[in-house]
């Protein structure tokens, strides 16, 4: 709250997603009441019936754009918000539903729904930034809840958020994990994936599956070479890059390039 008693207005919008990233906000059990006291939650249907009209100081946007209706709705959301922050892999990279982008989406609709005529969906699942300017993208499937609080705090006081841009390998080394790729030859996307999860998967004896999406300067091509040398098939490597952040350009490119090798 500022000294004049003004509470910044925050709204949470959902597009195609699992709800998990906005749930992260409610998962801040120790901080929730303090956060709620510092801001005015104006629109957050998962948590409240209350609706306060915009404009908003911050719009948090979860989910990807997959319908005509949502492609229009995101324009309205952008107009209503001073700062628009996308949260999670769906909003920042198109999500797992972007796997349709390499397939015949009409055929997919026919597979899932008996009356495909009732379904109005776009051929592609796309990140919010392909539709409107975005002020900050918070990565992760799901996002890390403390990043969310840091980001809201930083935005409200007007400083740069302290969110790591380096790779999972940095976190993994700091945790003292044995490198699962070097020691066991496991396919691991840690070297090209943005930190933030705390390098969980290697600590659980499995390779990183890239749920935080590509780090800024990811050299995915080099990693493909390492994985091929360690015995992964091209198909495996492609599937590794094509999960929750498949449509993020670095992973997208790597998943397409591997076929040509």
């Amino acid at each position, binding site marked *: 709250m500022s000294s004049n008693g003004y509470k910044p207005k925050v709204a949470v919008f959902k597009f195609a997603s699992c*709800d998990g990233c906005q749930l992260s906000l409610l998962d801040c059990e*120790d901080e929730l009441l303090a956060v*709620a006291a510092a801001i005015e939650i104006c629109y957050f249907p998962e*948590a409240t019936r209350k609706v306060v009209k915009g404009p908003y100081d911050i719009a948090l946007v979860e989910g990807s754009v997959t319908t005509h209706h949502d492609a229009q709705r995101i324009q309205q959301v952008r107009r209503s918000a001073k700062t628009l922050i996308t949260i999670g892999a769906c909003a920042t990279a198109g999500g797992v539903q972007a796997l349709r982008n390499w397939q015949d989406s009409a055929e997919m609709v026919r597979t899932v729904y*008996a009356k495909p005529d*009732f379904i109005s969906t776009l051929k592609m699942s796309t990140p919010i930034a392909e539709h409107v300017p975005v002020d900050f993208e918070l990565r992760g499937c799901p996002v890390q809840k403390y990043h969310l609080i840091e980001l809201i705090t930083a935005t409200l006081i007007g400083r740069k958020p302290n969110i790591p841009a380096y790779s999972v390998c940095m976190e993994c080394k700091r945790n003292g994990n044995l490198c699962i790729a070097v020691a066991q030859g496991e396919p691991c996307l840690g070297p090209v994936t943005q930190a933030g999860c705390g390098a969980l998967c290697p600590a659980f*004896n499995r390779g990183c599956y890239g749920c935080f999406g590509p780090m800024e300067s990811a050299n995915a091509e080099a990693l493909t070479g390492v994985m091929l040398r360690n015995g992964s098939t091209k198909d495996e490597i492609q599937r590794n890059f094509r999960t929750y952040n498949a449509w993020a350009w670095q992973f997208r490119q790597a998943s397409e390039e591997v076929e040509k090798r």
Partner: protein
Amino acid sequence: MSREATVSPAQGAMTIKVDCLARVEGEGALHVKVKSGKLQHVQVRIYEPPRLFEAFLRGRMAPEAVDITARICGICPIAYQMSAAHAIERAWGVTIDPRVRALRRLFYCGEWIESHALHVFCLHAPDFLGCQDVIEMAATHKPEVEMALRLKKLGNEIVRVLGGREIHPISACVGGFHKVPSNEELEPLVSELEWGLQAAEAGAKLVATFGFPEFNPDYEFVSLCHPEEYPLNEGRIVSSKGIDIDVGEFEDVFLEQHVKHSNALHSVVRERGSYQVGPVARYNLNFEKLPDTVKMLARELHAEPPLANPFKSILVRSLELMFACEEALRIIAEYAPPSEPHTEVEPKAGRGMAATEAPRGTLYHRYETDAGGRIESAKIVPPTSQNLKRIEDDLWEFLPGILHLPVDDITWRAEQAIRNYDPCISCATHYLRVYLDSE
């Protein structure tokens, strides 16, 4: 943008549109139409965009379904992980270590505690107390809200210890876990669970004092039933009207039906109609298997089965919350790490089905794999799509009795009746037939 109502009292006409249902997971809308004082039209519309999971699962290696289907729902990812793992284990003939099985139950208890604490206190209780949300509720019920958040955190902590993080945990796999905890890692949960057991009891006593409208429809309850345990990961599918089948027969007995007025696909029992899954169904069909402490409290609160009032689902969830704390304590007390975290699996051609009890009810998965272990077809039936027709039926029966109330009250009561089911529309949508009009 959210709610509108038009009333013309002279004609006894009224329409209610709630364009975005609040305090549910995902995006749904409610349309109600009244003419000459009579209910004409009730529709729970789902406009959550389809995400086409069953389609893009084809061609993936079956074990990937454990992590991928978790992304259908951020609220109950473990339910998806468990149903997927069990279905593929059945397809490939994998047997799991009993200690792994116990650990999976513990994992699931964590999700139940988190999800039920969230729904009971943060999403549903505000309706009974006349609050817009839990934040407003905290102004008058701060100790209770703090207790609820601590309970929720406890559930999340169990999930975090076993699975690395609260949402989309990373430890579950076909055959077991990538890594299992040591006794030392589980030990710190014990004192908090002992507190949780008492808190859940206090919570149940609190919600028992809420006002419940008199409403007892003739439900067909459907839930898993296990001979010895309150159901989580396995059992036969049983109903209050005589169904008793192996999970493999699920699709023979339950049908997805296209209802003209709705455009949404509804699950029904073939030739009988709507049914209910979830806490109230589980409770009515498995009451005897609850711990004595929970049964005693249920009697004290006059809440023993048969219990058909859907508004009392909040009380049943509170009792299940208590069960989940007690069950978690039991599992931790008896725990010894399995010799291997997971059984090695051999990809092969197969077909397997499984159902487990998500916090919101029975979640069914079926997979067919080719000789290399790739998914050829997948089918997922989440609890909310099974309850959807029943939710509409509830409204058809409940609304005529409250049409004399002011329209804002009718609207709120109708929303509350939907929230009785803790609907998860994100879950339902990858499967529901969705009608998107040009609004």
